[in-house]
C-alpha cells in the first residue's frame, strides 16, 4: 500500500469568526485523525527528522506509541526530551526543522510531527497526567536559573530530573517569558503554558517571581551568599529595537513587546475589568515581517482595529515569519504592504496620524543572502494609520551584564557562551537562548537550555569530586 502523501488537515476556527476572538485558531487533531496521521510515519531507521530537532525528540518512538494507542508511553517518551511538548507542538517552526527532513517530504508532505506532538501533549493534559518528583538528596547542589522563558524552563526541568535543587528567578510577576507576554492566546493558550509550568513545579523546581537579577540579587550574591553552585542565564532578548526614524515617540507608537505584553500578560483586552489599558486604533500598521509582527497585526484585529497592515521592506519570499502564520494572518484580513519602507511616523497634537513610507524594489543580495531592498525614487506615500507597532526585533537586556564582573559580551551586548555547553567566560555561569544568540525561536532556546543543563551537570559532578 502506498503511503498517504498529504498531511491530514488541522481543523481551524473559521477565519471570520476567529478574527474577533482570542480562542485558539487551530483546534488540534481528534483521535481518528491523529491515528491516521501517525500511520503515515515510515519509521525510517535513520530517523532524519530527529536531526532537525534542536532537542532531538525521539520522533519515530513517540509516533509509534500513538499508533499503538499507548498515550502514556507517547508522552513519557516526548517529555524525556522536551519539557514543553504542548508549547512546541503549537509554536515550533516544524516545517523548518523535523518535518523538513521527513522522508515523505521528498515526494509529498511530511508527517505532521508537530500536530502529533500537540495531540499527545493535549491528551496527557486532558487525561490528568501524573508527574512524579525525582529523588533528590538532602544535600543536593543548588542551581539558579535566571529567566522563566523557554530556555530557563527547559534547563530547570532537566536539572531537576537529574536531582539538583533548582530555583528559577523571574523578573515579571508570572513565569513563562515570551510564552506569556509575547505569543498571543490564540496561538498558545496561557492555561497550557501554566500547566506545563505547574508540572515543572511538581518536579521540585522553585520559581521566585518579581526577582530581577542584576537588581534584586546579583549573580555574585547568588553564588557567594545564597549557596547556588551554578547559574544558567536564559534572560532572552529583552530590549526592543526601534527604527530611529522621526516621530517614534509620538503617542500611538508601540514596540511589539509593549503592545503584546499589554494584551497577553496584562490582559488589556479585558479592559477595564483588567486595569491595564491599550490604545488599539482604527487603523494599525505593524512594521516587520516576522512571527512577532504577525502576532501583533492579528492581535490588533482582535482588539477591534478596522484595518491592520503589515509593512515590510522586502517581498513575501524574504519574510521570516512561518508560512502558516502569514497564511492565517491573510485569512483573517491582515493587509500586506510589501516592499514598503517606513520613513517617518507623522502626527498631529502628539498623536500618530500616519506612516510615511517609500516603495522599494529588490536589488542584489546583501550580507544576509537576501536581495537588498532599494528605494524607488519619488514613490513616497503616507499610510493612513493611528497606531504604529514596531516589530523589528530585540536586543539583549543589559541588566545582568552590567552588574556581573568578568562576564564577556560581544559588541551587540549578547553574552558570549560556548555553543555546545553554554559555558560563559566565568566558571559556573552558563547562558543560552536569545541572550546569547539574539532573537530566535522557542525551540532553539530550549535546545540551548538542554545543552547547558547537561554541561552544568558535568560541571557540578566534577565539583563534587
Amino acid at each position, binding site marked *: 500500500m502506498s503511503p498517504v502523501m498529504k498531511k491530514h488537515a488541522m481543523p481551524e476556527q473559521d477565519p471570520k469568526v476567529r478574527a474577533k476572538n482570542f480562542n485558539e485558531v487551530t483546534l488540534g487533531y481528534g483521535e481518528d485523525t491523529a491515528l491516521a496521521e501517525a500511520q503515515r510515519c515510515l519509521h525510517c531507521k535513520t530517523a532524519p527528522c530527529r536531526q532537525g530537532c534542536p532537542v532531538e525528540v525521539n520522533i519515530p518512538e513517540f509516533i509509534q506509541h500513538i499508533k499503538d494507542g499507548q498515550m502514556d508511553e507517547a508522552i513519557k517518551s516526548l517529555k524525556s526530551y522536551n519539557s514543553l511538548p504542548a508549547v512546541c507542538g503549537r509554536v515550533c517552526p516544524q516545517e523548518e526543522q523535523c518535518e523538513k527532513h521527513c522522508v515523505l517530504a521528498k515526494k509529498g508532505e511530511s508527517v505532521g510531527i508537530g500536530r502529533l506532538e500537540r495531540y499527545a501533549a493535549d491528551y496527557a493534559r486532558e487525561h490528568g497526567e501524573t508527574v512524579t518528583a525525582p529523588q533528590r538528596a538532602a544535600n543536593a547542589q543548588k542551581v539558579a536559573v535566571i529567566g522563566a522563558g523557554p530556555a530557563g524552563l527547559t534547563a530547570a526541568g532537566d536539572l531537576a530530573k537529574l536531582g539538583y535543587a533548582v530555583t528559577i528567578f523571574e523578573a515579571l510577576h508570572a513565569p513563562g517569558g515570551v510564552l506569556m507576554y509575547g505569543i498571543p492566546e490564540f496561538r498558545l493558550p496561557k492555561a497550557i503554558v501554566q500547566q506545563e509550568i505547574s508540572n515543572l513545579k511538581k518536579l521540585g523546581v522553585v520559581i521566585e517571581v518579581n526577582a530581577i537579577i542584576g537588581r*534584586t540579587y546579583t549573580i555574585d550574591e547568588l553564588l557567594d551568599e545564597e549557596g547556588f553552585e551554578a547559574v544558567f542565564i536564559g534572560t532572552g532578548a529583552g530590549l526592543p529595537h526601534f527604527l530611529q526614524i522621526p516621530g517614534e515617540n509620538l503617542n500611538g507608537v508601540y514596540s511589539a513587546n509593549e503592545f503584546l505584553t*499589554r494584551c497577553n500578560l496584562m490582559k488589556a483586552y479585558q479592559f477595564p475589568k483588567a486595569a491595564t489599558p491599550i490604545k488599539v486604533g482604527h487603523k494599525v500598521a505593524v512594521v516587520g515581517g516576522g512571527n512577532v509582527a504577525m502576532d501583533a497585526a492579528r492581535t490588533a484585529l482582535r482588539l477591534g482595529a478596522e484595518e491592520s497592515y503589515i509593512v515590510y521592506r522586502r517581498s513575501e519570499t524574504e519574510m521570516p515569519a512561518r508560512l502558516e502564520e502569514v497564511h492565517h494572518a491573510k485569512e483573517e484580513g491582515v493587509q500586506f504592504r510589501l516592499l514598503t519602507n517606513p520613513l517617518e511616523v507623522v502626527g498631529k497634537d502628539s498623536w500618530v496620524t500616519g506612516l510615511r513610507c517609500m516603495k522599494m524594489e529588490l536589488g542584489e543580495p546583501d550580507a544576509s543572502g537576501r536581495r537588498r531592498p532599494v528605494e524607488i525614487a519619488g514613490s513616497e506615500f503616507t499610510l493612513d494609520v493611528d497606531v504604529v507597532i514596531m516589530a523589528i526585533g530585540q536586543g539583549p537586556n543589559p541588566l545582568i551584564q552590567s552588574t556581573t564582573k568578568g562576564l564577556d559580551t560581544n559588541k551587540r551586548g549578547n553574552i558570549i557562551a560556548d555553543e555546545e555547553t553554554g559555558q560563559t567566560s566565568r566558571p559556573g555561569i552558563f547562558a543560552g537562548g536569545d541572550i546569547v544568540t539574539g532573537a530566535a525561536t522557542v525551540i532553539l532556546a530550549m535546545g540551548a537550555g538542554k545543552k547547558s543543563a547537561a554541561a552544568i551537570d558535568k560541571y557540578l559532578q566534577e565539583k563534587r569530586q
Partner: protein
Amino acid sequence: MFKIVAKKVLSPTVKQFAMAAPQIAKKCQPGQFVIIRIDDEGERVPLTIADFDRDKGIITLLFQEVGASTQQLGQLEEGESILDIAGPLGNPTRIKKMGTVVCIGGGIGTAPVYPIARAMKAAGNRVISIIGARTAELLIFEDEMKNASDELYITTDDGSKGIKGFVTDVLKRLIDEEKLAEVMAIGPVVMMRGVAEVTRPYKIPTVVSLNPIMVDGTGMCGGCRVAVGNESKFACVDGPEFDAHQVDFDTLIARQKMYIPLEKKSCENGRGGCKCHQS
C-alpha cells in the same frame, strides 16, 4: 504577597505606605523605584522609593491618587497586602562629594528627593533643599527634608506657607548668591522643565528623575522611552535620572497623557471608585 505595615494619609489624595519587602529594602539605593501590582487584574505601577529601613525590612512608598489603580491602592488599609512588588529598579542616583548641592522636590516628588538629600549630605555635600507645592496642605516630608538639609526653603504657589511663588524663584536667588555644584529636581514635569531652564544659562549640572508610562520596568517593553539629546532612552534601564538640559520635556508631557481618556473609562467602570471624571 507584600503587607502594608503602616499607612499614613498625608492629604486626601496622597497616601504613604510602609511595605514589608525585606529583599528590596536590603538592596535599594536612593533614586530607585519599584513596580507594584495590587491584584491579579492590576496594572504594573511604577512608584519611587521614598525611604527604606534595611533593619526592619521596610520600604516606604508614597503616591498620589490620579487614576483607577492609585485610587484602588489608596483604599487599602494597614494590615492588608498587595500581590507584587518588584525591584529595586532603575539606576541609583550618582552620589559623591561635589560641594553645594540643591535638592528640589515638587509636590509628591519631595518623597523620592528625601533619600537623595540624605545621601548627598552623608557624602559630605552642603545640601540646600527647596520643597514646593500649590498650597500648604500639599507639602510633604517637611521635617524629614529639614533634617536631611543644611538649609531648607519652602514655597507655595498661594503663599499659604513659606515663600509665595515657585521653587524656581528660590533657585534663581541661590544661583546669584553662591556657586552650585549640582541641582537635583523631582516633581511635576512642568516644574522639572522650569528648573532646567533656570540652570541652563549657567551650565549648572542639573539632574531630573523621570516617571514616564512604563510596563515591565526592566527594558523589555520600551514604553518608557524619552527623547534625551538626540536619542531615545528607556527611563527604566537608562534612567530614571537624566541630564535635565538634554531632556525633551514636551514629548514626555504628551506621552504621559496618552492613557487619560482610557483612565476615565476605567474609573467610570468602578475600578478604584475615583471621581476624576466628575470634575
